[in-house]
C-alpha cells in the first residue's frame, strides 16, 4: 500500500510538474509572427537594424541606399512584424550580444522608448559623435522622448506626429453638408461638439454612417495631451483627469450608439474605412496624424481626405532610432542616425518617399517652399485647398511629451480594458479607475497604488 501511495504521489507530482514547464513552451507558439530577416546576418561586417514594421526599411531601401550605396549593402534588417510583440522579442536578444541578430541599431516606439533610453542597452548619441548642433532643428517633444532621466539624448526621431482627425470628404458632404475645412474644424472643436456632431451624422444617415468607427478614436487626443504621467517621481500611480474624461465620453458615445463600437486596428474597424454609408457601414472620421494618412487609410480616402485639428493638441506615435551598447560599428550607426534625423537633405528625401512630416523644422520649411507633399501623398481632397505640410506646421509646435513613461504601451492597454468595461456597463467609473490602478500595480509591482 505504501509503495502504491508513493507511486501515485510521484506520478501526480510529475503530471503537475508539467504545469510549470509547459507554460513557457506554450507561450512560444502563440500567434506571434516570425521575424523577417533581410540580408546576410552571418557576414563579418553585417550591421543589424531592428524594426517592428518595414517603415525604417523603406527609407533604407530608398533615399539611404541612394546616398550611401556601399553602407547599404551591409545592412541586415529584422522586421518583427508588429509593435505589440516587439519588446518581448527584442529584450532577450539585447541581453545576448553574441547573438548573430543582436541589433546594432533599432527603432523604438513612443509608448516604450523611455524604457530603452533608461536601460543599459543603448548608447547616448553624444558617444556616437552626434552633437546638439546636429539635432538643433528637431522638435523639443521628440528630444524629450529620446532622453533618459538625466537628460542625455539617446534616441532620435525622424518624424513629428501631430494628431488630427482625417475626415472623408464625400461622407462629410453628404451627412454634414460641408467640405470646408474651417467649417469642419468647428464640428470637432471640443468634446461636447464632437458628441453633437456624432449625433448629427448618426441621425442624417439613419445609423449607417457614424462619425467614428469606435469611441477609441478620441483616445489618443486625450492620452496624448495629458499633463501628468501614469505615475509620479515617487513611483506612485496617478490617473490624469483626461483618462476620466476619456472614459466618460466613451460611455456617452457607447450609450447613445454613436459609433460602431469597434476596436482600433481590428478588421471591423478597417472595413468601416471603405464602406459607403448607405448599404455598408462607414465611418466619417478617423484619428490621424501624418504617418496614419499614408500608412493606414484605404483607397476610398484617396483624393478624398480633409484634415481637421484635434480638439486639443496631441501627438500619436513616432519612431526613435537608437544605437545599442555593443553596436559593432558606431560610425555607421551615426551615419544612419544623422541621415534619418539630422540631415536636412536626407529628411527632405524621406518626405519625398511618403509625404511624412519630418522632425526637422528647416527641412519642413524647405519642403513647404518647394511645394512638394502638398497633396499628402495623393490623399487630400483637392477642392478643400489644404496643404499637407502647412496644415501640420502649427500643430507640431509646442507638443509636450513629458508625461510619457516607459510602461505606457501596457498601461494604455490596461486602460482600454477598463474603459470598455465601464462603457459597456460592467462597472461604474470609480470601480473602473480603482481596477485600473490595481492592475497597473499588479503588472508593475514597483509602482505603488497608495
Amino acid at each position, binding site marked *: 500500500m505504501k509503495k*502504491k501511495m508513493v507511486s501515485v504521489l510521484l506520478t501526480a507530482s510529475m503530471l503537475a510538474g*508539467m*504545469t510549470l*514547464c509547459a507554460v513557457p513552451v*506554450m507561450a512560444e507558439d502563440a500567434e506571434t509572427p516570425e521575424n523577417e530577416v533581410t540580408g546576410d546576418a552571418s557576414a563579418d561586417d553585417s550591421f543589424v537594424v531592428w524594426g517592428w514594421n518595414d517603415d525604417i526599411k523603406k527609407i533604407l531601401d530608398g533615399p539611404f541606399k541612394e546616398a550611401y550605396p556601399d553602407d547599404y549593402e551591409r545592412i541586415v534588417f529584422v522586421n518583427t512584424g508588429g509593435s505589440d510583440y516587439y519588446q518581448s522579442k527584442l529584450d532577450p536578444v539585447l541581453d545576448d550580444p553574441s547573438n548573430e541578430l543582436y541589433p546594432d541599431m533599432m527603432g523604438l516606439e513612443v509608448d516604450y522608448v523611455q524604457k530603452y533610453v533608461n536601460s543599459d542597452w543603448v548608447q547616448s548619441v553624444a558617444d556616437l559623435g552626434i552633437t546638439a548642433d546636429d539635432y538643433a532643428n528637431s522638435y523639443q517633444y521628440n528630444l524629450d522622448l529620446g532622453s533618459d532621466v538625466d537628460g542625455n539624448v539617446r534616441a532620435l526621431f525622424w518624424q513629428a506626429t501631430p494628431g488630427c482627425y482625417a475626415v472623408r470628404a464625400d461622407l462629410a458632404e453628404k451627412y454634414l453638408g460641408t467640405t470646408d475645412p474651417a467649417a469642419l474644424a468647428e464640428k470637432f472643436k471640443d468634446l461636447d461638439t464632437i458628441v453633437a456632431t456624432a449625433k448629427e451624422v448618426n441621425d442624417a444617415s439613419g445609423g449607417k454612417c457614424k462619425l467614428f468607427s469606435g469611441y477609441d478614436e478620441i483616445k489618443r487626443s486625450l492620452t496624448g495631451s495629458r499633463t501628468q504621467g501614469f505615475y509620479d517621481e515617487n513611483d506612485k500611480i496617478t490617473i490624469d483627469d483626461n483618462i476620466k474624461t476619456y472614459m466618460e465620453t466613451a460611455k456617452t458615445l457607447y450609450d447613445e450608439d454613436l459609433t460602431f463600437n469597434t*476596436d482600433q*486596428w481590428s478588421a471591423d474597424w478597417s472595413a468601416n474605412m471603405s464602406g459607403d454609408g448607405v448599404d455598408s457601414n462607414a465611418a466619417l472620421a478617423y484619428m490621424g496624424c501624418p504617418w496614419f494618412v499614408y500608412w493606414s487609410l484605404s483607397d476610398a480616402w484617396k483624393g478624398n481626405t480633409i484634415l481637421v485639428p484635434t480638439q486639443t493638441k496631441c501627438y500619436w506615435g513616432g519612431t526613435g532610432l537608437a544605437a545599442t551598447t555593443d553596436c559593432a560599428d558606431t560610425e555607421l550607426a551615426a551615419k544612419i542616425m544623422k541621415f534619418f534625423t539630422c540631415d536636412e537633405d536626407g529628411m527632405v528625401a524621406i518626405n519625398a518617399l511618403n509625404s511624412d512630416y519630418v522632425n526637422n523644422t528647416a527641412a519642413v520649411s524647405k519642403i513647404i517652399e518647394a511645394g512638394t507633399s502638398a497633396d499628402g501623398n495623393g490623399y487630400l481632397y483637392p477642392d478643400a485647398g489644404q496643404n499637407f505640410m502647412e496644415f501640420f506646421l502649427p500643430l507640431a509646435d509646442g507638443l509636450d511629451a513629458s508625461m510619457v513613461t516607459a510602461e505606457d504601451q501596457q498601461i494604455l492597454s490596461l486602460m482600454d480594458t477598463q474603459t*470598455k468595461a465601464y462603457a459597456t456597463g460592467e462597472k461604474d467609473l470609480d470601480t473602473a479607475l480603482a481596477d485600473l490602478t490595481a492592475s497597473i500595480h499588479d*503588472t508593475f509591482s514597483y509602482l505603488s497604488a497608495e
Partner: protein
Amino acid sequence: MNKKKKKMIDYGRYGYFFIAPFFITYLVFQLWPLINTFYYSTLSYYKRNGREFMEFAGLQNFVNILGMAAGERGYVLSYLKNTLVMWGCNFVPQILVSLLLAVWLTDEKVKVKGTGAMKVIVYLPSVITAASVSVLFKSLFSQYGPITQTLKDWGVLGKNFDFMSSVAGSRGLISTILWWMWFGNTTLLLISGVLGIDPGLFEAADIDGATGWKKFRYITLPLLKPIMLYTLVTSAIGGLQMYDIPALFNVPETGLVGLPDDKTTTMAMYIMRLYNSDVGKAAAVSVVLFIITLVVSLILFATMSDSEDRRMKKEQKQRRKAGGRS
C-alpha cells in the same frame, strides 16, 4: 551456482540503462526547473527598464498574489475561478456528448452506418492548431461577424450584443471551442472503453429483456468508470493549465489580458503576463497552480485506483474475521 547469480544481476542492469533516458530528461528538464521555480517564488525579482532587481522576499509573493497584504488584490483567485468556470462549461457537455456518441457508435442493435467515417469526423477538430481555431471563431463571432449578424437578424441576439464584450459570451465561446476541439478525442477514448466490455454481458442482458437505457445504466456506465475517471484526470490537469485558446481568442494585441474586463484570463495566462515583468510573482503563481494541480490529481488518483483495492481488502478482512471465528 555463484556464476549463475552474477549473470542475473547483469541482466537487471540493462533495464536501468533503458529507463535512464527518461529519468535523465525528467531530472534536467522537469525536476530542476521545478525546484528552481520554488526558489524564484521566494524572491522579489522584477525587471525595470531592462535591469533586473532581485532580493530575498520569503513568502511575500504568496501573500501578495493571494491578496492578503494591504493594497494587493487576489488576482490569482479570480483567474482560478475564470479557469474553472471555462473548464467546467467545456467538460460537462463534453463527457455527456462523448458518452452518447460512444454508446450509439458501438451499439450492436442500432448498427450506425459509416462508424469509421464518423470517428474521423469527430476527431478532426482536434487536428487543427489552436491558433487557427481561435482566429476562425473570432472572425465568425466578432461584432460584425457572419454568425453574430445572422443571430441578430433572426432576433436571437439584441441589437447591441457583442460576444467579445460580454463576459458570458466570451467565456461561453471559449468553452465551446474547447468542447469542439476535445469531444472527438474523448469519444474515441470512450468507444475503446465500451468495446473493451465483454459482449457476453450485453447478450445476456438482451436475453433477459433489458432495455437500452437499463443496459447503459447498469452495464456500460459502471464498467466505463475507470476510463471516464482517466478522462476526468487528464482533462482537469489540462484544464487548470488552460492557455492557448483563451490566450489567442479575445485579448488585446499587447498582452495576455482575457477580455472583456479580465474575465477570461486563466492562471497560465497570468503566469505568462507576469513572466515579462515580475519573475518572482510569476513563479509564486506557478507554485500555487502546481499545488492545486497536485491536490486535484492526488484526489482523483486516489478515488480512481484504490476503490477496487479497498473493496477487495475489506472482503479479505471479513473473510479472515469469519475464518478466525470458526
